[in-house]
């Protein structure tokens, strides 16, 4: 309990801290533009993201967002267009964790890099955007936060200016992003046209009151376009095309950042928009179908396409990129499985999966960053026998991969298990969810194939004779080990995580 009451706007603290950190980094860059003081820059960025994490955890513990009836402080409305509830804090935590991990790992990755300060400030700005996405509850603030997250991301993907792949990837990402943003903002305008409101709760009110009934087609089109915008951010089919290229071309820590934090941020706006603005049942009466149908289709197609494309990749980073698309499909189950009377279990499961994913996927990409740091190459063969030289990192990588595949006792198993159970439960209301559950199982089985291929390369294959001694960069190692430990210990800690996720889901669904 705080000794004195903080002002309302302070509820956005986690995002504001990130913004302040970004500004500090800018300030430092203006004073000393050519500085390569990596320790200071990375330290500032890490401190900022950890402070953001600490504040978010503190708010959660202090009961922000918990209904007052349960002894909490209730939902806080810091300012117009934002809301801080359990859902917002939960995703602020995810974003802050991933940001901290990749900032620490970047310390070594950016050795001899020309744009140190720019890099860190862009990362923190993007993180600010993602953090704000978690709290935005108006279509305008959502869009602005989304752009705040996206624009630095484009620059970050292309930051290796001498690397053709990086620059090309950045451009492609930007073009697809522009197209998607256009679709998204057009969707916003259509929804505004149909309902006359931009605030999510106000939209819901209009729909519930039946005032939008004459504009059913308009609203439906707008809703689909919003789905398109969300699909871009979460790298879901059919807006996924940027992902393999961007992840492959970008510096590996940025790939980790985009595939974990950015995806999670995409999901939080999806959760918020669709559960708050378009109440199930009523929306079906207006536009002819419930939006869960769209997510059922997207979930199945996304996880299937992602996993199938990942199965035959030779390039490790590209494999992870496609697997990341597959995991977006898993998380989409959280929206597909919602029903009129609830579904907090399945949505909570999706949120758990995103948290666990924040550790295991970030860790896996950071291992790729480590490999790039070593310069061993990019394909599965190039990774052969690395365990002989770097057993700790390879053990951590095995943990990430098995967790991604959903093997017990790692965190990924439990979140996937809850998703499965949630999907089966939702099948009582909608038989199509059985197909989703089946697709989840089949795809997980397939994913084990390509994940274990990499484990085999690392641990079983013989290393090539001509490989130099491998360095042990402290920052990347620290980040990888922390991620691995969290992937494992999140299992004992799953009780609180489950409570937090289900509580947050209940807050928006119920």
């Amino acid at each position: 309990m705080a000794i004195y009451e903080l002002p309302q706007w302070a509820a956005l603290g986690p995002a504001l801290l990130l913004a302040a950190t970004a500004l500090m980094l800018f300030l430092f860059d203006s004073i000393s533009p050519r500085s390569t003081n990596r320790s200071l820059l990375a330290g500032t960025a890490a401190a900022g993201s950890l402070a953001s994490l600490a504040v978010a955890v503190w708010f959660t513990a202090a009961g922000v967002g918990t209904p007052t009836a349960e002894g909490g402080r209730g939902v806080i409305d810091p300012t117009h267009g934002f809301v801080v509830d359990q859902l917002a804090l939960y995703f602020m935590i995810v974003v802050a964790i991933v940001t901290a991990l990749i900032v620490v790992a970047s310390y070594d990755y950016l050795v001899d890099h020309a744009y140190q300060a720019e890099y860190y400030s862009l990362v923190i700005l993007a993180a600010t955007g993602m953090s704000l996405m978690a709290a935005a509850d108006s279509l305008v603030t959502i869009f602005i936060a989304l752009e705040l997250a996206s624009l630095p991301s484009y620059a970050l993907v292309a930051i290796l200016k001498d690397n053709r792949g990086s620059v090309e990837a950045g451009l492609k990402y930007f073009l697809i992003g522009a197209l998607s943003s256009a679709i998204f903002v057009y969707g916003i305008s259509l929804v505004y046209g149909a309902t006359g409101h931009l605030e999510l709760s106000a939209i819901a009110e209009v729909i519930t009151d039946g005032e939008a009934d004459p504009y059913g087609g308009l609203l439906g089109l707008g809703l689909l376009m919003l789905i398109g915008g969300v699909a871009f951010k979460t790298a879901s089919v059919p807006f996924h095309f940027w992902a393999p290229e961007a992840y492959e071309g970008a510096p590996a820590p940025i790939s980790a950042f985009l595939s974990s934090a950015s995806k999670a941020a995409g999901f939080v706006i999806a959760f918020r928009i669709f559960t708050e603005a378009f109440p199930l049942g009523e929306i079906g009466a207006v536009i002819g179908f419930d939006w869960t149908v769209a997510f059922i289709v997207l979930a199945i197609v996304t996880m299937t396409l992602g996993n199938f494309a990942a199965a035959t990749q030779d390039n490790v980073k590209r494999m992870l990129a496609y697997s990341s698309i597959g995991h977006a499909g898993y998380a989409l189950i959280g929206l597909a499985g919602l029903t009129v009377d609830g579904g907090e279990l399945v949505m909570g499961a999706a949120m758990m999966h995103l948290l666990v994913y924040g550790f295991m996927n970030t860790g896996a990409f950071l291992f790729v960053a480590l490999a790039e740091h070593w310069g061993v190459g990019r394909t599965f063969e190039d990774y052969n026998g690395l365990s002989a030289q770097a057993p700790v990192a390879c053990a951590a990588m095995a943990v990430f991969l098995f967790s991604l595949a959903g093997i017990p006792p790692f965190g990924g198993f439990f979140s996937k298990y809850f998703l499965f159970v949630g999907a089966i439960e939702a099948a009582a209301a909608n038989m199509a969810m059985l197909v989703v559950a089946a697709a989840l199982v089949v795809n997980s089985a397939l994913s084990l194939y390509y994940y274990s291929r990499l484990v085999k390369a690392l641990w079983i294959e013989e290393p090539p004779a001509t490989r130099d001694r491998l360095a042990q960069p402290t920052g990347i190692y620290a980040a990888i080990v922390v991620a691995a430990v969290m992937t494992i210990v999140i299992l004992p800690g799953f009780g609180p995580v489950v409570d937090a996720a289900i509580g947050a889901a209940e807050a928006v669904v119920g």
Partner: protein
Amino acid sequence: MEGAFSYAPAIAAFPLVAFVVALAFGKWLPKKGAIPGIAATAASLLFSLWMLVAVASGETYHETLYEWTAGEAASEVGADGIAFSFGLLIDPLSALMLVIVSLVAFLVHVFSLGYMNAEGETGLPRYYAGLGLFTFSMLAFVYADNLLMAFMFFELVGLCSYLLIGFWFRTRSAPSAAKKAFLVTRFGDYFFLIGVVAIAATFGTLQFAGDQSFVAAAETAIDDGATLFGFDAETWVTITGLLVLGGVLGKSAQFPFHTWLPDAMEGPTTVSALIHAATMVAAGVYLVARMFGYYALSPTALAIIAFVGGFTALFAATMGVVKDDIKQVLAYSTISQYGYMMLGLGVGGYVAGVFHLMNHAFFKALLFLGAGAVIILMHHEQDMWKMGGLKDKAPVTYWTFLAGALALAGIIPFSGFWSKDEILYDAIIVGLEEPVILAAYAMGLVAVFFTGFYTFRMVFLTFHGEPRSEAAEDPHPVGWSVKFPLIVLGLLALVAGVANLAPVAKLANVDITFLEHWLDGEYGAIEGLTYGAYGELLAYETGVIGTEQQTVLIAAGLSLLLAFSGAGLAWKLYNAPEPVAHKERLGSAGTVVEDNYYQDEYQVWLAEGVTLPLARVADRFDQTVIDGLVNGVSSASLFSSSWVKRIQTGIVTNYAALIVAGFVALLLGLGLYGGWF
């Protein structure tokens, strides 16, 4: 005596500790693990005796010690939930058996000093660890208070016998014999397991004793005329009882699962003594005695037990007649004797069966240890035709072995006579009313003749006549660790019959049937687990020839006459300075018997001619259909994967086109679904 039972778990725990010690530190111990084993079994024996005294003073013990899982269960009748637990049940039967097992185990450990250590065997820590685990499993099995726990330790007993039979794993025959013992008993245990599940599913409990036992539940179900799984209650009890009996027949080496036992002679002779007298083989018959109340509910199951028992008694006895290896003769005698016990239990002679189990434990341990002593004397020669004349050179071995032989052959007044006679008496009084039982009795009676014959053929060939090999002329001396167990067991073989002199009691009308009173709970017992309670459940009618006394006299006289004539024939044929084989005179019948009635052959045929082709078909199905399906799925996945990869052209305009196309497709699809057009 109140506190005695809180030490009960220690009885099984001591040998377990010995097992761990022998396994972990045996290599560095002076006698390679023998000392902890002897100490542990001695402690178990003392504690078992304490339990015996406690039960004698009127106490019993039935406690659940550890419940590992419990839950809701939709059982057919009775309880809504089921709990799986470990618990102890110490009543007259289990207290008696604890003493028998720990005594035999103790003596076997002592004997091993002379048989294994003195002979410079290697791998002794493994040997003593095996003995310790074996004793532990058997003791825990004996005082298990529920069927599941009994099953688990029953299996552990099987595992231990596998480990010990295959002790000399570098030979070709020992590992093969061990595997055979394991597989054949496993086959029986498979039915046992199904029986356990069936009983649990039917009654929702696996307890042996008390109101919550499956025995009580089965009795209630039969009284209520309940229908269980589509059968009337009694039929269902018969079915489940026979399923459990599968495990019993396997372990107690009853026809047709007896084939593993003669091969098991490949293990050290001490192990054979333990297996035959007190552990593995005894476990089967003990289980029938333990859940006798359940079998008593089903006359059909009992008749089958009796008939199989009688048949096995005769069948195995005839095979024992033509064996040349001293241990082989003993092996067949074991099968035959357990047949008697099954016969006794099957005709409702609970006391008689348990009595014979006890006596047999003593005299069979004695005979095996005696055979072990002979094998030491003979420098590891087991062929009886190469022995002879050991009588004067090893008097202790001879006289104790003779005591065991007399008990085995059923010569008055040795222990075996009293218990065998009681079994046959119980069989004949039921047999007078039930023709099936009469047939079983007849087989048991004829077997007495063969038993007398093969027993004394063995004695004469081994100890009498002139030495027929160099080893027999100059036997290896045996030490006290060998003689001591022989003397203890020899005395027991002579006097153990006093425990229940039923014929004398009936003829002289004196009250000296101590064992009957013991098992009837006159000292202390758990309600429902007494001879009297079982007697009320039994549906057998009994008859007599003339008066009861006359019947007793006729039965005892008949069996004594046959035993003496068998022994006499052996004396006439083999008690010569230079005995000759008489097998040829048997002609083709002899060949059939010598080949063990081709039991092994048909079982091998069953394995190779039926099971193997079936397994091959299953394998082919697995290889082609299942694997083909899996491989097909994976190649289809990989093919579609490469196709999916091709969409990713790397050209950004294609992506924009595909995104818009995908979005439009989604729009059209959902629009159609939502009825927009």
